[in-house]
Each structure stands twice: as C-alpha cells, then as structure tokens.
C-alpha cells in the first residue's frame, strides 16, 4: 500500500491579510505561510494507516513559502519520503486547477494506491483539490471524509453529508480523498525530531513543466468585507461584562 499525501502552504489566517497593489491577490510579501490544517489531518490519517499496516507514505507539495518546514515536519512525524514540485513561481497564487495538474503530472510516474489531501483550503476559489485531482487522473474520489478503512484492496470511506448524516461508501483503488478529520488529532513532531530530519533526510525536488491553461474565474478585486457592525461591544472589566451578560440572560428568563 502506497499512500501519497498532497500538502500545501497557505497564508496564516492569524495575521491580518493585506491586499496587493492591483487588488487581485493578497500581498504575499507580508504574510506568513503555514501548512493547510486540513492537509495536516490528511497526513495524520495516512500515518495512522501506516501505523496499522505496512503502508508507505509519500508527501508531495508545490514549492511555496516555508514548504520545507512542512515537509520536514511530515518526515519527522513518520512519512517515508517528501517531494517538492518546482517549475512554477513559488511566490504566486497557484490556483487549484493548476495545482491539481502539477500533482497529477507527478503522480503519472508514481505507483500509488491512495491520495489523501485536505478537504479544502481557505483560498481555493477554483474548487477543492480532491475532486479536481480525481477527475484529472480519472480515478474515484470523495470529499469531507471523516473515516477511512482499508482492507486489502478495498476502501471504505465515511463522508459527512450535513446535519450529522454520514454516508458510507466503497471506492475502487486508486482513489483520492479530501479529508475533513483524521481519527485522532495530528501528532506532535518535536522540534528536535524535525531538526534531526533536516540533517538526516532529503527533500526530493521534481520539476514539473505545464503548458495547459484551464478556464478559471478572473479575480477583479479582493477586499475585506464591510463591517456590518452588528455586535454591540461590551466593555469594562471581566466582572462588568459578566454582569451585563447575566442581565441579558435574566431578561430572557434563562438563568
């Protein structure tokens, strides 16, 4: 069993995002990039499968700011191999369709049974990776996956369908899954381990050249939403605010 985990970097939402000069993208010079948290769940699921069976795990990501950190952390956590795809502008917004084609081009030379990736990323305006990658590779796929069960060559997945309803289905391998949550919270890779990985393991680089263009949404402008100013802000000490909140609850007969 060979599992490929497709990971990616994403602007850190802890920071305030600024819009660039022509107003069509975030200002990438002034933002910190971190790994997409759903991809971390996908990695955790892959590593859990590896812990249970003899699977091998390859992590693949496009060259993006601080991606080495993410890849070394994945190696430290137990991934067997990390691959960085180059051949594009690492400081630009890679739209989902192009991302899928680049990863598909890497997978074309790989033997794999399962591709796991995060269900979504906060900037995937052009759709979510799993479905696009599945369609590009012409293999089955499923998104919002919260359960993965591999027995021999058969794959069962659980998907959340909204309102708590869960759909269980079987997919033929190879398949692509967009993972919503792994069986457990992502494991910790101590910095000591990550640093060991940096010294003892290598990130493979592979150049991907693409000529294909896909139709996509043209972004006219990116802008912060207008504040609707809905909330009346309560100020003062914790005690003052607590008193006000309790008064609101009392006025509605709730406490």
């Amino acid at each position: 069993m060979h599992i490929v985990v497709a990971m990616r970097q994403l602007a850190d939402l802890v920071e305030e995002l600024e819009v660039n000069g022509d107003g069509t993208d975030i200002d990438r010079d002034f933002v910190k990039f971190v790994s997409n948290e759903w991809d971390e769940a996908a990695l955790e699921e892959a590593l859990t499968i590896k812990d249970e069976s003899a699977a091998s795990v390859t992590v693949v990501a496009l060259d993006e700011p601080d991606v080495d950190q993410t890849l070394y952390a994945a190696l430290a956590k137990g991934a067997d191999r990390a691959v960085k795809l180059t051949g594009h502008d690492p400081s630009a917004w890679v739209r989902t369709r192009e991302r899928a084609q680049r990863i598909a081009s890497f997978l074309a030379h790989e033997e794999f049974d399962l591709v796991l990736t995060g269900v979504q990323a906060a900037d995937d305006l052009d759709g979510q990776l799993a479905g696009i990658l599945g369609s590009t590779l012409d293999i089955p796929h499923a998104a919002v996956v919260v359960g993965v069960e591999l027995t021999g060559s058969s794959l069962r997945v659980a998907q959340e369908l909204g309102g708590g309803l869960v759909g269980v289905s079987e997919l033929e391998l190879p398949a692509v899954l967009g993972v919503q949550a792994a069986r457990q919270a992502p494991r910790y890779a101590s910095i000591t381990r990550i640093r060991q990985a940096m010294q003892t393991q290598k990130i493979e680089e592979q150049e991907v050249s693409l000529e294909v263009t896909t139709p996509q949404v043209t972004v006219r402008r990116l802008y912060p939403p207008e504040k609707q100013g809905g909330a009346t802000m309560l100020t003062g000490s914790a005690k003052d605010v607590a008193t006000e909140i309790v008064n609101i609850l009392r006025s509605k007969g709730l406490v």
Partner: protein
Amino acid sequence: MAIAVLVVGERVAGESPDVTFELLGRGRELADALSGELAVVVVNDLDEGAQFGIADVLYVVDGMDSASYSAPQWEAAIGAVIQRVSPQVVLVSTGTVGIDLAGALATKFNAPLASYVIDVTAQGDKLVVTSQLYGGKLLSEGEIDAFPAFVSVLPGSLPVEKGRAQGSPRVEHIDAGDQLRLSKGRGTELREPDTSGVDITSAALLVSVGRGIGSKENLELVAELAEAMKAPLSASRPVIDQGWLPKPHQVGKSGKKVKPTVYLAFGISGAPEHLEGMRSAETIIACNTDPSAPIFEVAHYGTTLDLFDLVPELTDIVGG
C-alpha cells in the same frame, strides 16, 4: 428553449436542503437574464414534499440506490444530465455533495468553477461572482466569461423563500444506467445522526466553545459554566475534530443547526461553516480576543475580553 441554468438538488435523505431552494431562487433570475430555462435535477427518488415549482424542468435520474450515498455515482449521474442538456450555468452548494461534484465535473467539462460564492449575477454575457475566501476575511469579486460555468454557493448566503414558489415544471426521467454501471464506487449505508444523550437543538440557551479554548483540559472551565447555567455545552468544528467533545455537541454545517434564544460563543472565530449552524439564534453573545473575528458580524453583543477572564466571572455570578 435551451437550458440556461441547472440546479443540482442535493437531497440525499429526508427533505431537500434549504440550499437547493436558495439556488433555485437565484437560478430563476439567472435563467431569465440569460434568456433560457431553469432546470433542477434530483437523483434518488423524488422528495414528495418538495415543490420545485419555480423551475421550468425537473429532471429525475432513475436507477440510483436511494439508501446510500456514493460520490462517483452522483458524479456519473449529474455528469450524464449535464452532457445531455448542456446548461450554461450549473449551480451547486459548497457542501459535501457540491464539493464532490463541482471540481470533478468542471474539470471533466473543462469549465470554470467559482467556489464559496455568496452572490452571483449575470451582467451581459458574463457572470459576476462574489466569493468568501480566507475564512471570510476577504471577499473576491470575480467574473466568468466561459460557459458552461460551475458556481458553488455557500449555504445560507441567498434568500430561500423565492425558490419555494409554486408551479408545475415538466418532468423528464433520465436513465443514467450506463454511466452508473461504469462508476468506480457504490454506497453502502447512511448513518443517521447520533441523537443519544445531549440534544443541543432544543435548548433555549447554549454555551458554545471554539478553538480559542486551547485544550481539552481547559474545556472544564466552560463546562462548569454550562453546568451552572443548566445549559448544554456545544462547540464548533475544531473542538470536535480534536476529540475534545463528542460529535452530538457540534454546531455548524456538518453538525447541528441550532436556534436557541441565546447563543453564548466563547473563543469561536466564526468560520462560515459555523455561522451557518447558529446565525438564526435569537440573540448571539460572542467573546473573542480578536476584534476582527467574523463572529462579531453576526453577534448582537460582543466582547474582546479573554474567555479565561470572563468565564470564571460568569460562573461566579450564575453559580453563586
């Protein structure tokens, strides 16, 4: 007349979801602007209670297993309908079914796709779409000038009532048997929501907690408050995903939709998926140290105090 807009009815079990009617309402306007017909496609058996009166055509895909859900089967079925009726615009939701379908089919038909859409209009021969990116921190205004085009709308973004208008669309049955037989997946079962134990949907007061709580250990602090208030404890997605609270406590798109009299939100930033589950609460009181957190957009009262300062005070007043 040609089909201008095809709405994908995303009912898997039970009633058709609200978002289908949001899509139908807006789909009507788009179809009129594009001078074509509005169609809706449903798979599985028809939801008898649903009125698709606003549509001109209702396609029913026959031959699907209605007791389960399979992404490849749906993709095959909806793909067959698109192939046959060649709509200009396909409307889906940015929910599980929509996420399964939109990217894959847009790729198959080499068509553009806009996700997380909260507004879509036709302007001349273009579609103008507004999408919510970066967890709601930025909006993107984009245009699409190639057709067919796929538009994936965030549930809860558009008015729903218009889509429920009365009428009698002509019904066409489509047999996607060939495509379904070739599909590389099949559904096996549907698991109903776990309704044992806590019921957060019927409470008048909910004490809800998000990522800001930091750890399972800290959850005790808010649990104490909930106990003092005799209110159930609910949570946003990250708390559930970390395994800090069991699934029946989850509020949001993939959890429960709640409508309490008062919703107390501690350390919840207000991702669109969460807002979808609680925005219809009568009064929302939010505590988050980030003054720009999207939760304050929907909250009626807010405070940027640290929840670790506020919660003990509340417990003190209510419990003491």
